[in-house]
């Protein structure tokens, strides 16, 4: 099985159009009645605690700036109370913006949610931005089908049409046979699928997901994550996703923004977050995650320059005397172990790992995922050679994997 996160990352790079779907600049969200005083205190550098004691206001989001590209899954990550939900809810106006700019794409133009009128906001909510809730928020008196059609009903679409459209989305999440049931007759996972279908039903470009899978048990959660990734690949939605689980964020996120006490403290690709956590808070998160699906060969490998050389021969493993000979361009020409010649074989992501035989030195790219690299190492019982543009750049050995698994890869530089 190929790793799912690597699949989404490649997909996102393929269609790098760099069109912002959501553009947030210097955004503050303050809950309470005194937001002017609170803003002044915020500018004066007062902490959240000081502000709540003086004015009674709660700072939800402080000076957040973030760009979300079209077709991206951006995960807002943080502990509860870190402001991730507050930021998400500002995007469709459920939370009022106290200051700053919040632009959301509406076809060709961008609409500033922070200061648009009620009609524009309603337009954005019913056509452009839909939402999936943590506790599903399905209407208990409506059937599954009518729940999916809820957004369409709000737009005033007639019953027959909206039911047809809803049925189509219900098929998409595999629940078409349940259309006549009521939400309470469904399991949690199924209910959230209905929530997902309801959000898809209005064909909005942007999906806001507020910890949608947190209320589900782990197996169902993982299954829904996979389904979401599949659906996103097919429908190319822009998704802003809130999660408190870094593993989930790493799995589904194109980019991750980590929040701590109302501020975005780090924003980057999953691998960047894992490799270069910006402070102890992020490091703490990273230390508890599984790096297998996130890290790539490039970040783990021992550089070819660091290896022992004997003329044009490079020593991969001194103990077993595994040697590889490079030609003038640095391309691997032949390999041997204890004097016996080894075959050279190329492997690319997506190829069947079961075909790999022992005593074949595998050559692959530095973009290989850690999981695949370990699998190859395990099957060949040989180091994995990494080449880029026909040139040998490094190799992966047990030490490199152990290092990463023990969380000691923080200081190792990428590339």
């Amino acid at each position: 099985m190929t790793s799912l996160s690597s699949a989404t990352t490649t997909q996102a790079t393929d269609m790098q159009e760099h069109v912002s779907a959501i553009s947030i600049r210097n955004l503050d969200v303050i809950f309470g009645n005194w937001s002017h005083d609170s803003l002044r205190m915020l500018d004066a550098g007062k902490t959240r605690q000081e502000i709540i004691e003086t004015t009674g206001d709660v700072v939800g989001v402080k000076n957040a700036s973030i760009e979300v590209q079209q077709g991206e899954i951006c995960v807002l990550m943080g502990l509860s109370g870190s402001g991730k939900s507050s930021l998400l809810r500002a995007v469709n106006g459920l939370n009022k913006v106290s200051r700053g700019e919040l632009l959301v794409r509406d076809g060709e133009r961008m609409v500033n949610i922070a200061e648009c009128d009620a009609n524009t906001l309603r337009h954005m909510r019913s056509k452009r931005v839909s939402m999936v809730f943590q506790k599903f928020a399905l209407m208990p008196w409506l059937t599954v089908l009518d729940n999916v059609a809820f957004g369409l009903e709000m737009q005033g679409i007639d019953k027959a049409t909206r039911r047809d459209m809803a049925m189509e989305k219900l098929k998409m999440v595999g629940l078409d046979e349940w259309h006549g049931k009521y939400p309470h007759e469904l399991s949690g996972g199924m209910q959230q699928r209905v929530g997902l279908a309801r959000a898809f039903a209005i064909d909005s470009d942007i999906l806001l997901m507020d910890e949608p899978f947190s209320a589900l048990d782990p197996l169902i959660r993982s299954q829904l994550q996979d389904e979401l990734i599949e659906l996103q690949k097919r429908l190319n939605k822009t998704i802003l996703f809130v999660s408190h689980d870094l593993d989930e964020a790493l799995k589904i996120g194109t980019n991750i923004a980590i929040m701590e006490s109302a501020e975005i403290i780090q924003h980057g690709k999953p691998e960047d977050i894992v490799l270069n956590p910006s402070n102890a808070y992020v490091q703490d998160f990273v230390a508890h995650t599984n790096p297998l699906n996130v890290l790539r060969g490039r970040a783990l490998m021992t550089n070819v320059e660091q290896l022992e050389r004997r003329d044009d021969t490079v020593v991969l493993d001194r103990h077993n005397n595994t040697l590889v000979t490079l030609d003038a361009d640095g391309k691997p020409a032949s390999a041997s172990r204890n004097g016996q010649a080894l075959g050279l074989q190329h492997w690319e992501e997506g190829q069947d790992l079961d075909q790999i035989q022992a005593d074949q030195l595998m050559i692959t790219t530095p973009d290989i995922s850690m999981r695949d690299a370990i699998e190859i190492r395990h099957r060949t019982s040989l180091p994995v050679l990494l080449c880029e543009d026909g040139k040998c750049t490094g190799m992966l050995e047990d030490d490199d994997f152990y290092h990463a698994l023990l969380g000691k890869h923080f200081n190792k530089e990428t590339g």
Partner: protein
Amino acid sequence: MNWITDNKIPLGDWMEAFVDWLTFNAAGLFDAISVSLEWLILSMVDIFQMFPPFVPMAMTAALAWFLHRSIPLVIFVVVALLLILNLGYWQEMLETFVLVLAATTLSVIMGIPVGILAAHKPWVYTILRPILDLMQTIPTFVYLIPTLVLFGLGVVPGLISTIIFAIAAPIRLTYLGISRVPEDLIEAGKAFGATPFKLLYKVELPAAMPNIMAGITQCIMLSLSMVVIAALVGADGLGKPVIRALNTVNISQGFEAGLAIVLVAIILDRICKAPGAKEEG
């Protein structure tokens, strides 16, 4: 200490002056209300009386079956109505039923919007709560007097008194239902672009429906509990024979009329109650 008792605050006189003022200045209005309500109620009773007793009986039984699919309930309804017919209180039963129906309908029409308003505007409820408490605790006989003065003898003062007593239930329960709509349902409504009006009748009202239904059921039962008092000011119905029995110390008549009221109460309660309870399952 004598001065306390010597200088009595003329609260009662003020109230009387107020009622006098109303009678003098708005007599036309009260007369119009009185005449039209009386006409409405009497003609409804007439309509019901046009049918032979088994028609309303069959309709009630059908309604019970339609709402509850329970054979024992249908049998009970039929037997109870036959007993009332047999005791000779059919006409009074119809009058009571119409009075309860009218009082409940008016209470619900006025009470639900007030309840919604109170749930949306906290200050309205702050003002409303003591008034509702007052309406439910003040002895019924006390406001029977001014209603009698304003609307004259007959079914209308009975109806008005019944409404004053019973309207608190739909207001309170609508308020309760709407203010307890789960926040995430409201947010879901907003997030999908609901207008305030759509939010009300596609999210809030359906979500509050079990509570509102309970309010209506309660309103019916409270209205029914007022039949004897309404009879005091001249409203027709099952209350009249009870009053008459009381005045003549007629045990048998009192028992039969009382039994008829109880039967009507049970029928109404059983028929109205469960549709709300069904949704909880």
